[in-house]
């Protein structure tokens, strides 16, 4: 399983997303962390906002938003808005991809 965390530095959520991802995966699974630095790169990567988590090249939380340098909006299990995915949902989606 190839896991990527794509982020844009204009959004401060990626350290928390990486910590959640690491907690969900454990220490043995490598995580490729890549910065998206320009609108052109965002378009080329299909990057719909920061943070984006991909497994084997596919967005773990697919959305229809156009690519761009922005913060992604996630929803927690109780419906609240969040800059990072719900940790339990993240675990579930990762588990389903293993």
């Amino acid at each position: 399983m190839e896991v990527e965390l794509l982020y844009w530095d204009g959004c401060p959520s990626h350290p928390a997303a990486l910590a959640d991802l690491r907690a969900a995966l454990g220490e043995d699974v490598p995580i490729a962390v890549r910065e998206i630095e320009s609108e052109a790169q965002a378009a080329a990567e299909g990057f719909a906002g920061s943070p984006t988590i991909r497994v084997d090249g596919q967005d773990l939380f697919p959305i229809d938003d156009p690519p761009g340098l922005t913060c992604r909006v996630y929803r927690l299990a109780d419906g609240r808005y969040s800059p990072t995915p719900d940790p339990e949902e993240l675990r579930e989606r990762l588990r389903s991809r293993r």
Partner: protein
Amino acid sequence: MALAFTLPDTDGTPTPLHVDGAPAAVVVFTCNHCPYALAWHERIQDVARDYADRGVRVLQINANDSVKYPRDSLEAMKARVDAGEFATPYLHDESQEVARAWDAKTTPDVFVTDGSGVVYRGAPDADHGDPSLNAQWLRAALDDVLAGRPVANPETKPVGCSIKWK
């Protein structure tokens, strides 16, 4: 004195910062597309409602570039206001002049002003993910102003999405 402004709300009504007799005003730079602004949004509305009867004005301003970020368009602002999401006016800083003058950095970025100028600037509270914090930094600043005390904690680090400059 805080930097004065008058900005249109979503109906185009000019809305000034200063109103005679108001002991304090809260200025919140916010927007529609940022998860941090959305996460703190209800806490800001609660502050607006809780302090309204003490004369505190709360003005929420969207200054983001809506060409690059269409979710921050005036039409999207109107839709949220029409849906009842705002307890106080939601103002449009299309030219971004007010955001620049106030040196706004993020959404949200919260300022409290009294007759002397800005007395608090920063985040509503310590954690966007914990509603129980109830915008306690903002409330503490307002309580100090309304009691005639210096604000004990006048500055915290604003946390959120960067303002989307043109």
